[in-house]
């Protein structure tokens, strides 16, 4: 009791003392409160039968029915599996490529060459997914796509990619790497250039080859960065990059089984299906599970090595 009073007085005291600081933080505080925290209350929709006229809180409860529909129809498992597999594939390919590019670029000593290639490799990060969607269509479409132009030039039969679901995981993975390699390599290049130049010099004087330097100096130096990047991605393993999937795949129903992730499924049902209970269940399941995963992973990592923990 006394404790709470003391704390409340503490707050009032702090408020009086730092009124201006409270005022400075207030706009962002209320913006985030309204735009991010208030919608969290809507997660209760997962346990309700939503009716627009009754609103979020007036709609009747229906227990876990939404969840059982989601998973008994098989959709829940399919989109969960796809989301996880795509995230793993994209994590491995884009980080690996970024590490390779970063190691090689830092080994290059020609300044102009280095600058120009780095500029070019980072360029895709600045391009909107809509434009990437235009690229994908121009490269892969049946009638006029670049690949079929090349195939036809060599006298081959044009390929209808939009009828071949098996090709799409690789196409998506390729464009994900295309978009993010430059961005991620900037992070690794920063880690590598943070190495003391003397360490490398001393190693070469002692007769270390380039391979030994990379193996024993460069790669260990980027390990903390790599671990952080992997942890961040693992924390998002149930979140699909909606913008990427939606722009690359579009509304091609043929490809849904191979390319539908939780986010695209949710969006599609949100706009086409008036019964949003199941959709709300999918987002609830995604948000909660993501939160649990990141907390568990972080505490495990903290247990193993405090320095690698995210928070």
């Amino acid at each position, binding site marked *: 009791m006394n404790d709470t009073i003391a704390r409340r007085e503490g707050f009032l005291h702090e408020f009086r003392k*730092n009124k201006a*600081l409270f005022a*400075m*933080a207030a*706009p*962002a505080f209320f*913006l*985030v409160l309204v*735009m*991010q925290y*208030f*919608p*969290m209350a*809507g*997660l209760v*929709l997962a346990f309700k039968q939503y009716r627009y006229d009754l*609103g*979020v809180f007036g709609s009747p409860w229906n227990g876990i029915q939404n969840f059982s529909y989601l998973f008994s129809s098989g959709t829940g498992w399919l989109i969960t599996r796809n989301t996880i597999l795509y995230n793993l594939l994209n994590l491995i390919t884009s980080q690996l*490529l970024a590490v390779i*590019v970063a190691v090689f670029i830092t*080994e*290059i*000593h020609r300044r102009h060459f280095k600058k*120009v*290639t780095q*500029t*070019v*490799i980072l*360029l895709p990060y*600045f391009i*909107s*997914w*809509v*434009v*990437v*969607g*235009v690229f994908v*269509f*121009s*490269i892969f479409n049946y*009638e*006029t796509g*670049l690949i*079929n*132009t090349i195939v036809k030039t060599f006298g081959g039969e044009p390929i209808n990619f939009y009828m071949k679901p098996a090709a799409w995981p690789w196409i998506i993975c390729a464009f994900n790497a295309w978009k993010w390699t430059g961005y991620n390599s*900037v992070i690794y290049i920063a880690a590598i250039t943070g190495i003391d130049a003397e360490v490398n*010099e001393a190693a070469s004087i002692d007769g270390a080859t*380039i*391979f030994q330097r990379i193996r024993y100096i460069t790669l260990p130096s980027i390990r903390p960065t790599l671990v*952080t990047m992997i942890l961040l991605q693992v*924390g998002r393993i149930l979140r699909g990059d909606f*913008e990427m999937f939606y722009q690359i795949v579009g509304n091609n129903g043929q490809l849904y089984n191979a390319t539908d992730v939780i986010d695209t499924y949710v969006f599609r049902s949100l706009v086409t299906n008036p019964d*949003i209970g199941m*959709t*709300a269940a999918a*987002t*609830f399941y*995604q948000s909660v599970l*993501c*939160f649990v995963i990141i907390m568990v992973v972080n505490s495990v990592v903290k247990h193993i090595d405090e320095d690698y923990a995210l928070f």
Partner: protein
Amino acid sequence: MAANSKDMASSAPTKIRLSGSSKTFYFICYLIVIIVAILCLVPFILLISGSFTSEQWIRFHGFGLLPGEFSTEAYKIIFKTPGRILRAYGVSIFITVVGTFVGLILTTLTAYVISRKDFRYRNALSFFFYFTTLFNGGMVSTYIFYIQYLHLKDNLLALILPGMFNVFYLLIMRTFVNTVPFSLVESAKLDGAGEWRTFFSIVLPLLKPGLATIGLFLALGYWNDWYNAMLYMNTEERYPLQYMLYSIQQQTQALSRIAAQAGITVSNLPSNSLKLAMAVVATGPIVIVYPFVQKYFIAGITIGSVKG
């Protein structure tokens, strides 16, 4: 290309004596970097050459990396009736300028507060913002809340508010604020300056690189946004550029699908090259500005990767 890079490799200035295997290493090094760089550029080459190719050529031969038959037809169509595009440009510029400006103010003020060591709730406040990266309401409840309770449907605020504040930018900005010596703040206050005065005349002028970095990230986010427009905008007059591009692309695709099914040719409309020309018009400003502001983005990405 390969021969060229070999030349570079063997003449690469380095303190190490180049053994045979190091030469091979440098050769591979240049080769891989060149290949990755080319792969990054290919879609842009396709985009530009396709937009300058005549529609008949595309329909007959398909897209190539070089313009088969040069034509500016697509651009002529865009600029003949520029109303739609100009309006979309206007919307994009408006949301970018307003959102970036207000977002910068919010981010900087908040970053200043959470970096003040004498502010008791700085950690609680940081956690309040950080928590949104761990947990959120998800697409459905956010959508319903914005529409039913905030009435953002078809309201330009729906394009501005969601992207205005971001924890990632807050943490980057805090790093910039931390470079300002706290003794400056303290001495300003001793001289009788209030908190606001101290912030605006002492701290803010020292944050120029931080302002440039975060401002550019915010602006890029607004310029490339189409997702919020897709969810919340109904009237075409309020479409930003990227979403306008998307909807035109959908229309021409739908049109050609219908035409193909009905066996009609819509040869008067250069739909293929038009799409690419639109993409060039929408992306052009970014690609032109990018080389000059690249260093700010690199600084931001680097700082952002160091966990805060």
